[in-house]
C-alpha cells in the first residue's frame, strides 16, 4: 500500500553503521568558537563603519584604501569574511539537513550553498589582497 504519507515504508528502516567520524563534533565546536570571534569582529566593524567619526557618510574610496594599507585591518576583514562565510555556511548546511525532505533536494541545495561559499570567499580574499589604492580612471 502506498499513499501520500508513505505509511507502508516506515522511516529509517535500517541504520547505516556508524562512520566513526568526528566531523560533526568539530563543526559544532567551530560554530561556538567562530561565533564568539564574530561577535567581536562584526560589532567592531559595525562600530567603525557606522558610528565612529561621522559613520557611514565618510566612507569612500580613500577611506577604504587607507584602512587596507594596514595589514591589521586587512587581516580583520579577511578573518571576518572567512569566519562569517564558513559559520553561516555551516549553519545553513545544518538547516538544509534538518528540513530538506528529499535526498535530491538536499544534495542540490548543498551544492548551491558550497558553490556560493567558495565564490564569495575567493572573490573577497582576492579583493583584499589585490586591492590597488593607486588605481586610475
Amino acid at each position, binding site marked *: 500500500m502506498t499513499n501520500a504519507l508513505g*505509511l507502508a515504508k516506515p*522511516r*529509517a528502516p535500517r541504520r547505516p553503521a*556508524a562512520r*566513526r567520524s568526528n566531523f*560533526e563534533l568539530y563543526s*559544532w565546536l567551530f560554530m561556538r568558537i567562530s561565533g564568539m570571534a564574530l561577535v567581536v569582529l562584526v560589532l567592531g566593524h559595525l562600530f567603525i563603519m557606522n558610528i565612529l567619526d561621522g559613520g557611514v557618510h565618510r566612507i569612500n574610496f580613500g577611506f577604504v584604501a587607507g584602512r587596507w594599507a594596514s595589514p591589521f585591518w586587512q587581516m580583520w576583514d579577511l578573518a571576518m569574511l572567512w569566519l562569517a562565510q564558513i559559520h553561516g555556511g555551516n549553519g545553513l548546511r545544518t538547516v538544509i*539537513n*534538518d528540513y530538506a525532505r528529499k535526498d535530491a533536494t538536499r544534495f542540490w541545495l548543498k551544492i548551491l550553498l558550497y558553490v556560493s561559499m567558495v565564490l564569495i570567499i575567493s572573490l573577497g580574499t582576492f579583493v583584499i589582497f589585490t586591492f590597488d589604492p593607486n588605481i586610475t580612471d
Partner: protein
Amino acid sequence: MTASTAEQTSSSGSKGSEPPVPEGAITVTVKIRRFNTEFDDEPRWDSFEIPALPSDRVLNLLHYVKWYLDGTLTFRRSCAHGICGSDAMRINGVNRLACKVLLKDLLSAGGKPTTITIEPIKGLPVHKDLLVDMEPFFEAFRAVQPYLINYSPEPTRERLQSAADRERFDDTTKCILCACCTTSCPVYWTDGSYFGPAAIVNAHRFIFDSRDEGAEERLDILSDKEGVWRCRTTFNCTDACPRGIQVTKAIQEVKRALLFKRV
C-alpha cells in the same frame, strides 16, 4: 447475530450503555485526530461531547469514547498509572501521558466551554487513530547498546558502586520509553534517522555508569552524523518528559564527554 446484540458489540469490543452522569460533571469537547489507514485517504478530526469530572484524567475521556460512544477508537494504554509509558499522545499540542493529565488542568478559564485536542505523537508512522508504529523509535534505542557492557571477569558478588557514582546517572534511569521526548523533537520530526532524545538518555544511563565499560563504543555511535550534534537544545524533550528527566541536560553531558574525551 441478531439486531439487538449487534448494537451491543462491535469489532473492537463491547459498547455499553452510557453510565449515569456523576454530580459535578462538566461537559467537555474532545477533538480526536482519527485515521484508519485501511479506509481513509487522510486523517480527520472527530469531536465527542463527554461529561467528566475535573478529577478525571484524559485517559478516562478516551475510555468513555471507546466504551460508550465509538468502540472503533484505537489507542494504547496498559497500566494507566504513568509507569508503562504506553499512552503517550499529543494533548492540546504538547506530548503528555494521557493517564497523567487531569481534566482540571485543561479547563478553560471563567467556565467557558473546553475543547481538548488529542493527536497521535508526531514523527512516527500512524497505524490507526492514536496508535503509532514505535519500531523506528525502538530501533534507535537498540542502536545505542542500552545494556551493561563489561569485559572484566565476572565478580562472585554483586558489582559495587559508590553512592556518588550512582548519582551521576540517576536521572536517566527513570526513562520509561514512552517516546514523549523523541516525538516532541523538531529535528526528529524532519529527520527520522536522528537517534532522538530517548535513545541518548538511555545511552547516558550506561555511559556514566562506573560499572560499565562500553562508554567509548556508545560515544562513537552518538558522535556520528545522526547523533548528539543534531540536538538544537530546544528543550521540547525536557518539557515533554512525564518522568521529569532533564533530557536536554543529559544530551549536553554526552556532548561534553565527547568534547573533552572524558566520561
